[in-house]
């Protein structure tokens, strides 16, 4: 299964509370008027300039083993390395909002429109997560329609750049996924262009396989430990 996904803007409407939080704005019940105006303008620009798209492509465990080995730069032991081997199904994914929105953010900063540029960046970062969620929903639907799920099946996304999976892993991932179909490319430093893009693997299997402790050697360098929240969210 390989699918190109085109999303509509209304399906990826970013969550206002998350955006305000990322801007350090905590003001219940309503943020100040100026900030609301920036938010409205950003949402408007986001709607006009984003071209949200994604690709998902199923991959076998043995094929993924090759993708995951990447350029040989991963940490020795990583959560993904343990999880994918116990999975029932895997799919690679990538998602993007297109070049226009990143160009606009850069332009706003150049024009000294820092507040709007920064707000739009938060909106877009939240928006790209929504595109990835939609890609995940497609995979989930595909698996359940083809009778490949059980009540305990849970899907989680894992990406190069996190938890010991080196960012250079995006090279092999893209050799398999062919993201050029939706105009995503990799720079020599293994970064995706357009900037507002994400990539990774979706791992489906019994929820227990996604559990891991955050005591890998590299965990001490991680400031977020967002893995804890993610694991908690697996109900």
């Amino acid at each position, binding site marked *: 299964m390989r699918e190109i996904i085109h999303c509509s803007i209304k399906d990826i409407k970013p969550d206002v509370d998350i955006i305000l939080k990322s*801007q350090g*704005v905590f003001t219940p019940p309503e943020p*100040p008027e*100026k900030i609301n105006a920036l938010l409205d303008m950003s949402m408007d620009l986001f709607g006009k300039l984003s071209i949200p798209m994604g690709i998902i492509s199923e991959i076998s465990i043995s094929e993924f083993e090759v993708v995951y080995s990447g350029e040989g730069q991963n940490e020795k032991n990583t959560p993904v390395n343990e999880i994918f081997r116990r999975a029932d199904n895997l799919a690679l994914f990538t998602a993007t909002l297109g070049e226009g929105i990143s160009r606009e953010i850069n332009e706003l900063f150049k024009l*000294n429109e820092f*507040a709007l540029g920064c*707000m739009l960046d938060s909106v877009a970062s939240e928006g790209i997560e929504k595109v990835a969620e939609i890609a995940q929903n497609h995979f989930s639907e595909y698996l359940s329609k083809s009778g490949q799920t059980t009540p305990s099946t849970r899907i989680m996304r894992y990406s190069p750049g996190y938890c010991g999976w080196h960012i250079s892993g995006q090279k092999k991932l893209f050799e398999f996924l062919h993201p050029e179909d939706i105009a995503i490319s990799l720079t020599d*430093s293994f970064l995706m262009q357009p900037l507002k893009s994400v990539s990774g693997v979706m791992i489906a299997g019994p929820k227990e396989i996604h559990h891991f402790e955050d005591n890998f050697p590299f965990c001490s*360098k991680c*400031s977020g430990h967002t893995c804890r929240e993610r694991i908690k969210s697996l109900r």
Partner: protein
Amino acid sequence: MDILKQISENLRGGNDKKVLEFTKLAIEQKIPPKDILDDGLIAGMDTVGKLFKAHEIFLPDVLLAAKAMYSGMDELKPILIREGIPTIGKVVIGTIQGDLHDIGKNLVGIMLKGAGFEVIDLGNDVSPEKFVERAKKENAKVIGMSALLTTTMQGMRKVIDLLNERGLSGEIKTIIGGAPVSEEFAREIGADAYGYDAASAVDRVKKLTREK
């Protein structure tokens, strides 16, 4: 209210048009440009920084104020250059090679400019050679590096090693920052300073440039 106070108060409120208007007025009234800069624009930005640290205003307020400051600064800059009034120092900043996260770095750059530094922003995915060569060419006092990926933060060490190799570490100081970076990591790789956030980056860069 005197003109310089008008500049700093309007700047605080993010009123860029008023800041520009009062800056023009101050220039017309032959107020020394250095006073307009220090007691109007930088003073206003300084207050904004303090209010932000005290959680009395939010990040978007700071950024609106920064825009207002720049509107006055754009008017004043040609005069400062003409009169040979130097900035308090040049800082070359960028996100380290292999990393694209640039919002934190942008905020640091905005606040440094707000404090009166000249900032040369090299963007993201910047190689160690580019940092060092540009800093040397521009006669910058400080290199500021940002990293958000744990896999690429080691690249900061390469910049510091390169400065040492080329005998430039006395001349060009370094400051690092970004979510995975810490004071301890800065010490480990031999960086001269660590900035926890944009405001602390400004304090540290001021200190680094005073030390020289």
